[in-house]
């Protein structure tokens, strides 16, 4: 086991899957010699050649549309959108075709592709490089939507996404790309899509989150323990579609109080669905309104102010305290 960053762990997943299955092909802008602007595909072109690591022209819809055709042919394309902020150029391809070809053809064709997108704020980037718009994908019938949070689960989830028989949109929290390391086993690991995990156990309140927000959430939980003696249970969703509502509703039944945390804009964000599921499945257990700690319903500002836009430890901890005070 080696300590790895998420970038390295994702690279490991790609490398091993490519070695194991020659149908796996990586494509996108600058994924070849450059190794991807975040270096997730580093070294792959040297190991697997230009036919399997394809530097494409600059066209996101083209990349997604071509991947769809490749997948129909039996390949397993893993394509990279350089930033999620440019992935919407490909939404119509994914919505109209990747998500539907199995259904449309009566099962004759399928689209086992992965659309990888670095997403989210907190890395002092330019405009369009910090959005969190996972809902565009998670709300689209026929797509799966995965968001890992640590190097180890990122690696395992990417392997499972590649092997999944259906299209998976894979959002990578770039704020967590190199922020910390984790032991990642060299031997193969997978992780079932559609399964959430308890990232920290607790009994007083449940905090549900995913992606880059896991870290400030865990930090807030730690502070709450130390300063207030509050024991927060933290649920890491990992997959937004299909959503594992069994785990978080069980936790909510135990604690009776829930806070949801995401960096995407609040209105019509993922948090709303979590609240709706809680109300549907654990209504009588809820002792306080569910608080949503989220990005605001505005474009994320340029980097001097992005930390005030993004939910941070302070905002999360305060929301938990308020929820407990209710």
């Amino acid at each position, binding site marked *: 086991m080696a300590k790895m960053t998420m970038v390295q762990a994702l690279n490991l997943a790609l490398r091993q899957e490519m070695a194991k299955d020659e149908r796996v092909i990586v494509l996108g802008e600058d994924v070849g010699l450059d190794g991807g602007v975040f270096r997730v595909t580093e070294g792959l072109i040297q190991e697997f050649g230009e036919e399997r690591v394809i530097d494409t022209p600059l066209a996101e819809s*083209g990349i997604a*549309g071509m*991947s769809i055709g490749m997948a129909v042919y039996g390949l397993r394309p893993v394509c990279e959108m350089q930033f999620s902020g440019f992935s919407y150029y490909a939404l119509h391809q994914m919505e*109209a075709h990747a998500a539907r*070809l199995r259904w449309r053809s009566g099962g*004759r064709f399928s689209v086992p592709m992965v659309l990888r997108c670095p997403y989210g704020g907190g890395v002092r980037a330019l405009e369009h490089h910090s959005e969190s718009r996972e809902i565009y994908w998670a709300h689209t019938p026929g797509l799966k939507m995965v968001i890992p949070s640590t190097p180890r689960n990122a690696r395992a989830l990417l392997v499972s996404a590649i092997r999944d028989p259906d299209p998976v949109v894979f959002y990578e929290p770039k704020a967590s790309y190199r922020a910390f390391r984790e032991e990642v086993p060299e031997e193969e690991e997978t992780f079932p899509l559609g399964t959430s995990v308890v990232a920290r156990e607790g009994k007083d309140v449940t905090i549900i989150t995913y992606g880059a927000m896991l870290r400030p959430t865990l930090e807030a939980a730690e502070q709450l323990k130390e300063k207030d003696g509050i024991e927060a249970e933290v649920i890491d969703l990992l997959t937004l579609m299909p959503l594992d509502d069994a785990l978080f509703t069980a936790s909510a039944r135990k604690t009776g109080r829930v806070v949801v945390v995401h960096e995407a804009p609040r209105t019509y964000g993922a948090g709303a669905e979590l609240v709706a599921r809680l109300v549907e499945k654990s209504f009588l257990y809820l002792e306080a309104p569910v608080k949503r700690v989220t990005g605001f319903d505005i474009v994320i500002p340029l980097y001097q102010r992005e930390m005030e836009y993004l939910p941070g430890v302070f905002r999360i901890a305060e929301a938990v305290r308020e929820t407990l005070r209710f």
Partner: protein
Amino acid sequence: MPRQEIDLPHRLEYLSILDENGQVDTSLEPDIPAELLLKLHRAMVLGRRFDERMLTLQRQGRIGTFAPIKGQEASQIGAVAVLSSQDWLVPAFRETAAEIWRGKPMENVLLLFSGYNEGGQIDDALRNLPIAIPVGSQPLHAVGLGYGIKYHKKQEVVMTFFGDGATSEGDVHEALNFAGVFQVPVIFVCQNNHWAISIPRGKQTRAKTLAQKALGYGIPGMAVDGNDILAMVAAAKEAVERARSGGGPTFIEAITYRMSVHTTADDPKRYRTDEEVQEWVKRDPIVRFETYLGSKGLLTEEAAKAVDEEVRAEVKAAEERWAKRIEGPLDPITMFDGAFAELPPHLVSQREELKRELEAQKREAHHG
């Protein structure tokens, strides 16, 4: 190096072999066996008769909206005629004749346009993608298939269709550019039928021809009389041979005409003159091909009549199979089929919801 003219790498040609009077340019006449010529003819007539029948069924309210192909039989059949069954067809939504040539059962067409998802089902043996309604979105899939072929070093080729209107979409541009860069074995057949609903070809782009768009991608382009099946076969054959031998993609502009409505929801009287349509009636691809076949002694008037009757019977039989398929009660629950390889829990429970609702509704209808 002052104002220097730039050499363009590809010539642009216009190909026509059989003119609108059925006269052939013998220097270009392709060498097509008589049997195949008759098969092409039959497929064109079938396409025409099936189209007419669908229009009737639509007017009777038995099927929903669809896009008639009348007038475009040659540009479709001529193109796909040169494909083998191992090759791939990536259609838009107005290639019914081509799809039937490639093995799609007519009853499936009827099923689809009468609102049954079952009509989209593709037989395992066929290498036809389902129709793609979002204009211009499908040529990219052809590029991906072409990449798969190249990657696996197969001898297959891909033929994709789209319209004059589709050339305006960014996706078609991206597909042509990718095809040029990756040199995939893809034949792009643009059926320029002069209209995109109410928008005439001249308002779609200021380019003199659509074929010249190929120049922007460094791939060979060609304009062809799309109502001339001999020219279509010749052009498609050249393109397929190039693709199969590693020579990469080709763009074919098939110049044809949409003789009927855009779809059955459309009223072309609002935007085009009957005179224009009449001009094109004179260029009917079937009429001129029958003249040619007649002049070659391959088709007598009676033989033509016989073909027509056979074809009508075929259409009728398909219609009966379709009618049988939709006889029983609908099972709405099947709407969940194919959403994913394996239905995730939330869809299992939504399916249960629907089941309960349908049963409750049945009970209520029964009781009250």
